[in-house]
């Protein structure tokens, strides 16, 4: 294979993944999706690193990727615990809810217009009901997010 062309193609794909992850990280408000976006960025980096390693015929790139995967696993553990605890407090996964700490006198960000719920947004995978339906606590229901 043409090693140089391979490298350039892989770098481009890596860059695209990084950019898509970056855009997702910046635009999305769901903490889990933000974290997923960060993982996509890491994927892009991994692709680049492997390509560089192959080009140089060097193990370093692959080593770095192995450890990136390990670190991603660690971060995922922390992230999930953290996100779960945060979601418990507000009932939402929205990062924008966490803006109490800010410069004094600055207005808080509030959503100006909440879009209408549309039909297509209601598409949701359903599972065939099995067993007994759990009892739902109405109080708990209240601070869950409404659809």
């Amino acid at each position, binding site marked *: 294979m043409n090693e140089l062309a391979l490298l350039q193609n892989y770098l481009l794909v890596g860059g695209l993944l990084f950019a898509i992850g970056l855009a997702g990280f910046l635009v999305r408000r769901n903490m889990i999706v933000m974290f997923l976006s960060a993982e996509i*960025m890491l994927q892009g*980096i991994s692709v680049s690193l492997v390509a560089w390693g192959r080009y140089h015929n060097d193990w370093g*790139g692959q080593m*770095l990727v192995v450890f*990136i995967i390990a670190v991603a696993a660690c*971060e995922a553990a*922390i992230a999930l615990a953290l996100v779960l*605890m945060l979601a418990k407090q507000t009932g939402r996964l929205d990062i924008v809810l966490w803006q*109490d*700490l800010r410069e004094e006198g600055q207005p808080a960000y509030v959503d100006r217009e909440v879009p209408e719920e549309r039909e297509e947004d209601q598409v949701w995978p359903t599972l065939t009901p099995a067993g007994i339906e759990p009892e739902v606590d109405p109080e708990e229901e209240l601070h869950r997010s409404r659809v």
Partner: protein
Amino acid sequence: MLADRNTVVLLLPELILVAMATWIYVGGTITRSRTWWVLFALATYLATGLILLRGNAAAAELFASGSLSGPLILDPLGQTGRVLALGLGLLFTLLLAKSASRELASETCATVMLLTVGLMLVCRANSLVLLFLSLELISIPTYVLLYLGRADRASAEAAAKYFFLSILSSAMLLYGLSFLYGLAGVTLITAGQSGTQVVGIREALAALAATPEAAGSNVLLLLGLVLTFGGLAFKIAAVPFQFYAPDVYQGTTNVNAGLLATVPKMAGVLAMTRLLVVAVPATFQYAWQVMLVVAILTMTIGNVSALWQHNVRRLLAYSSIAHAGYMLIGFAVALAAAGSEPAGAADGVAAVLLYLVVYVLAAVGVFAALSYLGSERGEVNDLEELSGLGRTRPEIALAISVFLFSMAGIPPLAGFWGKFELFAGAVRLSGRTDSTAWVWFLALAVLAALNAAIAAAYYLRVVGVMYFRPPAAEIRGSGQGPLTAMLVCAVLVVAAGLLPTPLAQTAANAGRGLVGQRVETPRAASIGQREPARPARLQ
């Protein structure tokens, strides 16, 4: 590096700390006594410190023999940095003696210990892999500690903010590292003195710059540099990566704020030194302007914003941002001087290192004092809570004043020497009118002096509140640990101010050990023609 006796000798302190941290994690199920685990951790640090100091001598022999190279580097910076890191761990453990939550004391102590290990490894990491992992070994415990700080909403918010922005910054750092790796083809940062057997990024990039076709790689190199700089600038809270600092400091405890103000900053500065200043020769040519602009912006924004603050931690957060700006001055000087005179570059790096130590001492001291003043019910948050401290607790007020004055750079204290060395570097460079940079550095020096004046205003405001306001609420203060830490820092700050020579000498050695080494490229002589627009910066 294969696992041989040398590896164990070189890593013994870290290994002991990891083992003991694991034992503390496990032992936490046996007893949850805070006092016991803090004492245990302190004993561990002291024992490790002894081993470390003895090991340093052995390491010096190995270093002299020049036989070592690999993921771990042996040089004055690394060896001194480890001692400092261990000291930081000790100080923060002292602080934990008061503030660690009772249920999670063992976890907190052990996490701080592993964080210390991370910092010690950053000091000596000589490979991209190890450097990245060590930085993560600092970040991940920090997330945990931030969340463990206090059981309230603000603390959780601080942890979330720091976490998300930090993973973004580490992604940037990694992407940048990938380009550096890609251009050099090795993960080793520098071959050090045993340059003939091994090649590191430093040597490889120098060779690359010497090839006539190097221009093609410039944009990639630049991407790598800027992304790496961005990732590390987050750690030291430089503009525009500083946004998290005020919010996170405000939301968390005083101890955690102290941790954030010192440990990541130290790690970031060390990594910048190793990567940007030492490893990438091409940086010398391009990066000083950016460093300079970022330095100016950082210190200005930090200082100006701090003028408006009422919350102590928020104020200190902005102050820590400003200090990051001062340190970048040294880097700018080092980078600008590196091309023409390595001695100047070494001086610049030495100034940064000196400033770092001096700043770390003062910052730990301030946060220790604040932590000491807090009660079980609530911590010191607002500046007003300190009013009249000069009358109710004169010794604490005196210590805080000493730290703040040191940060402000008032002469007989340690901070003065830090600032002096930094500014003197800039002024010296601006005096060398043969280089084109002198106007910029003159402006930099002037702006830095102006900034120091602005900074003095808000530091003095704190001192004024302590001394010239009637005492507010009852403020008692408790805890032997924070008190000890504060006293140690105060003594060190004053001592370093009165006798700055040993510290400055150590910093100079470290700087010289880093930058002074020449990069030998095997083919440098045979590559004859160099483009006139880009003279190769090899020395």
